[in-house]
């Protein structure tokens, strides 16, 4: 049986581990040099920080995952620095590009563990050098030992906001401000549910408390107004919950509002998507074990709906067991299923604590740029409902008319905000305007004419 696993983060590692244990040697594809995914990304060789410094409370989990990754690599058909840029479900083929060489991987079953990226809301000035995603700010520090600036402001909501601010302060960067768009009341209301989460809630409180104790400027329930600067970031302006304007000097800003699935391959595989109202994300359809309506395609980890690293590890193993079960093997899944179910309940509380601030996207001024690639303004997107074309009833026609999502990133950065802006203009729910359809390649590939290499 030919099995392909795409992704070597927490989900991919545990999926491959379970396949190897069952005697299956999968083709294992990952874009990074060393695997490990984003959350537990290892610095390149030469860095000396220990796991405790790099991963904090998650050090033990990260160390265990790295051990599993290193043990699995030589036993699998490990293909690092390889982009799976397309999938052809009818032929059961994945199309890859690695160091300029195109390849075709044939599969009987594939587990897609393609991870997530930051979900962002555009802010005026967000294209200035010095603005990164929250995840980007964390990667700079974790994997490169660098802060995105000397004096950094963080803007967004969710657990990562507080964690990254804490990590920056600990590493010796000046944290200019932590600006949370979620009002304190929303988090407090969801707190009882979050207490179910093993230690996550306590960790969050610890970071907030630490930042307060160290005199870091913190504001909650803010409305961002602009990131300012000429050629690079020099400050950030926001309005507090009472309507007063504030400003902080800074040379960099990290922004992010939780995560969204990087589900392009699932989309190209023909997996239908549902709008998950709680996560406020479009997620590929799968059952609790990771099976999709498309034969042979399994999903696990944040790429199949945001669940976090701990869930991803369990889901990766579970998807591999589903694959084995469907291949007629006998598997034991009850304990795994119970743990996944428990974690799902916690996740639901977390989502309620940090709801996506759709109103911020919808309320952006007409002159704000929402699409970084094509340099499109919010006003240009709104104009798609006003002619000369027949009004855009959904995002793909808005894309056709305005070019939203037609740039190099194919809407993975602006798509969520574009849908909010359009839905608000049309006066309908965001689910009604749909989502940008995926189109190959998953990421840009060079126009070259090398021969295709097929590997079984």
């Amino acid at each position, binding site marked *: 049986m030919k099995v392909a696993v795409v992704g070597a983060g927490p989900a991919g590692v545990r999926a491959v581990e379970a396949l190897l244990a069952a005697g299956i040697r999968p083709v294992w594809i990952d874009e990074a040099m060393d695997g490990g995914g984003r959350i537990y990304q290892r610095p390149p060789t030469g860095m000396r920080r220990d796991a405790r410094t790099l991963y904090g409370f998650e050090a033990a989990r990260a160390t265990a995952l790295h051990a599993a990754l290193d043990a699995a690599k030589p036993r699998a058909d490990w293909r690092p620095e390889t982009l799976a840029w*397309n999938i052809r479900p009818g032929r059961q083929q994945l*199309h890859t590009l690695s160091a300029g060489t195109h390849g075709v991987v044939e599969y009987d079953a594939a587990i897609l563990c393609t991870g997530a990226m930051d979900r962002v809301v555009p802010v005026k000035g967000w294209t200035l050098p010095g603005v990164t995603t929250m995840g980007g700010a964390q990667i700079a520090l974790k994997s490169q030992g660098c802060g995105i600036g000397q004096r950094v402001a963080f803007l967004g909501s969710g657990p990562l906001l507080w964690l990254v601010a804490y990590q920056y302060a600990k590493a010796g960067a000046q944290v200019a401000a932590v600006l949370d768009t979620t009002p304190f009341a929303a988090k407090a209301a969801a707190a009882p549910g979050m207490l179910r989460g093993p230690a996550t809630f306590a960790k969050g409180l610890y970071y907030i408390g630490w930042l307060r104790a160290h005199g870091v400027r913190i504001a909650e329930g803010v409305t961002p107004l602009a990131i300012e600067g000429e050629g690079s970031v020099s400050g950030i302006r926001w309005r507090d919950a009472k309507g007063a304007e504030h400003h902080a000097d800074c040379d960099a800003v990290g922004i992010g509002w939780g995560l969204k699935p990087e589900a392009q391959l699932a989309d190209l595989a023909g997996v239908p998507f549902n709008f998950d109202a709680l996560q406020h994300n479009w997620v590929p359809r799968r059952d609790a074990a990771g099976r999709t309506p498309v034969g042979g395609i399994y999903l696990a980890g944040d790429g199949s709906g945001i669940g976090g690293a701990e869930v991803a590890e369990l889901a990766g193993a579970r998807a591999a067991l589903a694959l084995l079960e469907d291949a007629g093997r006998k598997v034991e899944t009850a304990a795994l299923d119970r743990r996944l179910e428990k974690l799902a309940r916690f996740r639901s509380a977390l989502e309620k604590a940090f709801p996506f601030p759709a109103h911020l996207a919808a309320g952006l001024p007409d002159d704000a740029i929402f699409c970084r690639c094509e340099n499109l303004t919010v006003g240009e997107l709104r104009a798609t409902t006003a002619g000369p074309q027949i009004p855009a009833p959904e995002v793909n026609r808005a894309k*056709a008319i305005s070019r939203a999502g037609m740039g*190099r990133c194919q809407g993975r950065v602006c798509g969520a905000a574009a849908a909010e802006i359009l839905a608000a203009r049309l006066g309908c729910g965001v689910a009604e305007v749909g989502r940008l359809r995926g189109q190959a390649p998953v990421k840009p590939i*060079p126009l*070259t004419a090398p021969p295709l290499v097929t590997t079984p």
Partner: protein
Amino acid sequence: MNDTRFDVLVVGGGGAGCSAALHLAQRGTRVALLERGLVGGQASGVNYGGVRQQGRNPAELPIARRSRELWGRMKELAGTEAEFTVTGHLKLARNDAEEANLVAYLDVAKQHGLPLRMVGRNAIHVEYPWLGPQVVAGSFAPEDGSANPRLLAPALARAAQDAGATVLERTEVEHYAHDGTLFRLRTVDGREFTAPVLLNMAGFWGGRIAEAFGEPVPVKPLSPNMMVTEPLDYFIEPNLGVVGGNVYLRQIPRGNVIIGAGHGENDPGQPGQVPWSRPVPEVTMEGARLAIALVPALEGVQIIRSWTGIDGNMPDKIPVIGPSSTTPGLFHAFGFSGHGFQLGPAIGAIMTELVLDGHTDIPLEAFRITRFAEAAA
């Protein structure tokens, strides 16, 4: 319900169907356009965007000439030029036989008043220094150019609405009947529409409508394999094609290069199903190879997106246009075989003349639906 009875029903919201709705509405006809998905969703909206006359089958040239006149005043017609730009179309020869083909077409063009200029072996690399060495000659059509296919059908649909047409998207007709006086169309969600006149402008699916009225045609689904690059400094002004048509490319002033070559895969589906089509990676790669051979500077440029849609392909590569041979009041215009975008605006005008005037000055004999049965007989 009153608004299910019309003078004319148009099935299919491509460029031609939307133009028909517009032209009919402009002349005061009660017309409804029924579109299964969204207007311009298939061949009309996702094609290459060539507004090209040169190289067409001679039978199509009178339509193409008329359409070119409409393209020239698209803003007035549809409220937008749909990015129509007269860049000229440069058709390239890569060997002696292809060059002979270009020379032979000069006479055809002359007969139809289509300006063409031969660019010979010496001139071609002087005038277009970015062309690859395999190019030996070209034929330049100064009136041709390109437009943005994503904008045209939705703009024509909007103009049709403004002129009084009823445009119904997400309206999939499942059942077709004619009771001797009226066409009765029933949608998959149970709505019924009636009219004494029906225009079948449903692209590939037009074959199914023709079949429902007892005149099947050998139409097949066709999915041109398209891709676009990241933006580059603007240097390719003319819309480029080659003899044989195995690659075509153009650059828009924003900088992206749009490349078409070969065909993707598709499933047009049964009524109630969503059709799908997708580019084929090997075809995309082959297209890349052909494009680089034509314009070597494209090597290493990033492809950021690929796509396709579904058109109707006829065995003789020209559409079916004209009255039904079985059912009075039924008119067809479908099967544009991958090159209908330029023709769409004129097709709407011609269909309007057939319906309202009973005749058109454009010769349509070559496009009659009975030609396949005649050939088989």
